[in-house]
């Protein structure tokens, strides 16, 4: 049961809808449901919204819409009647190990498992995309098997290639573009998580992700054609 929605002024041009202080699918689902409602029926003056783990930041133009009007609109959303719309399941091909996953062996050693077992456990679950952030298209994923969690590299690499799939602590994720980074890189996907030209992200908050192991040849084929079944 949702009691009164908690709303907080985030500066003078945004309102945060704030849910339970936890990382959980249940809480994040409320954020996503409210974000969807805002996108579908936003009153004039709403500029955009940023779903996060447990908050939805809604930007508005106070010259067009008052804080009170926006709060009234957000409070009108009925969580109870809103059946949770399942996000999409997006399959992401990953070539594990070798030149694409230089830290796979180290991660396996840390977990006291074989590299094959790390790959199996990493590609088994459906991960939830809680939010996108840090860099365009970067998914904050939840659902990593604790058996393959491993600490960040002590010295971050100065360059991690775009598409790299990494583990840091209990998090796993995909670098959308080259960047310095301290995650343990266990593989790489040929898919683009964010396309600068079309300005589209592969994923959105609320989606599920499953990593599908592929070989180097298939990696090259997908990279060439840009196509993935």
């Amino acid at each position, binding site marked *: 049961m949702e009691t009164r929605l908690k709303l907080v002024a985030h500066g003078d*041009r945004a309102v945060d809808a704030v849910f339970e202080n936890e990382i959980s699918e249940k809480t994040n689902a409320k954020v996503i449901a409210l974000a969807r409602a805002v996108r579908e029926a936003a009153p004039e003056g709403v500029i955009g919204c940023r779903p*996060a*783990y447990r908050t939805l930041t809604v930007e508005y133009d*106070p010259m067009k819409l008052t804080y009170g009007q926006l709060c009234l609109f957000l409070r009108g959303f009925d969580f109870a009647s809103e059946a949770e719309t399942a996000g999409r399941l997006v399959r992401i091909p990953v070539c594990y190990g070798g030149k694409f996953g230089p830290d796979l062996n180290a991660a396996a050693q840390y977990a006291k498992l074989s590299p094959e077992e790390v790959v199996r456990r990493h590609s088994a679950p459906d991960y939830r995309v809680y*939010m996108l952030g840090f860099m*365009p298209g970067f998914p904050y994923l939840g659902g990593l098997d604790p058996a393959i969690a491993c600490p960040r590299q002590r010295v971050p690499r100065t360059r991690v290639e775009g598409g790299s799939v990494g583990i840091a602590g209990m998090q796993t994720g995909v670098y959308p573009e080259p960047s310095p980074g301290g995650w343990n890189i266990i593989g790489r996907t040929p898919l683009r998580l964010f396309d600068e030209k079309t300005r589209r992200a592969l994923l959105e908050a609320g989606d599920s992700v499953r990593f599908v192991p592929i070989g180097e040849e298939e990696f090259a084929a997908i990279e060439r054609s840009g196509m993935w079944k």
Partner: protein
Amino acid sequence: MNGKMIEITNKGFLTVPVSAKRHGLESCGVPTGGPADPFRCILANRLAGNEDDAAALEAAFTMPGVRFSDERVIAAVGGIGEIAIRRGGEELAFPANASVRVFPEDELISRPLEGGMRAYIAVSGGLTEAGIALRTQSAEAGQRLGLNENVPAVRRAITKMPFDLPGENAELRVIEGVQWERFSREGRESFLSGEYSYTPESSRMGIRLEGPQIGFKEGADGNIISEGMLPGDIQITSAGQPILMLADCPASGGYAKIAHVIFADLPTAAQLQPGAKLRFRLVDLPAAHTALRRLMLALDGSIRDLAEPDGNAL
């Protein structure tokens, strides 16, 4: 060089093409972007006869060198009193904060800025949106940037500047941050009574400040579950020092936010220079919105059309 473009002849220190237009990509983790000082960019655009959100150049520390390829009206607003144009063999000076007509082969000359961190250079018609990278990218010498069709522009000047450049001592109005309650009473008092200096580790992403340490309530620290972040947010790092976010701040962040600079004071924040001393004053949300309405009215009343001296040269 044919018409409908400009050429960067000198990038100065950092010159970025910026556009205030939004793309609805904030939920994809794309930073807000756009001009760090949105209001001076609006003024430059209005002087050049453009819409408020037309794309323009943002210069930091130094004016860029820019060569024009057709007749346009341009205007510079920000940390600059005068602009210099090379025309033929001559160097001509024109006042900033007013429109200036330029002709093919005219060149805006690179000069250090004074009195403010940033200046906006608008060109009548505006830069094409296609030339604006989704994320800020510095223009480079030799780079050409497309212009839209020209728009008719009359001679205009700012006769009443709606805000001053901040100088060495500045005050920013803030409203309570979304994590205000996470800070100790002493921490909040330090923040509201202390003086904070602008450190060199600052950019369009944010301004790192240094001053009295800001502490958290017992049992609390600066780490929160990552959530949406906006220009104007003031995060407190684990070391107890503030970072004031600007246009290119990441779309999300995981440090607690003690306060938010009100939109009407963002121009002051964006014009602070290294060494500046800063204080914060708490206001409530209605006061912030009143300040914004006043600023928008002041913006509307700031520009006057001037008579063209001879119908051609401005």
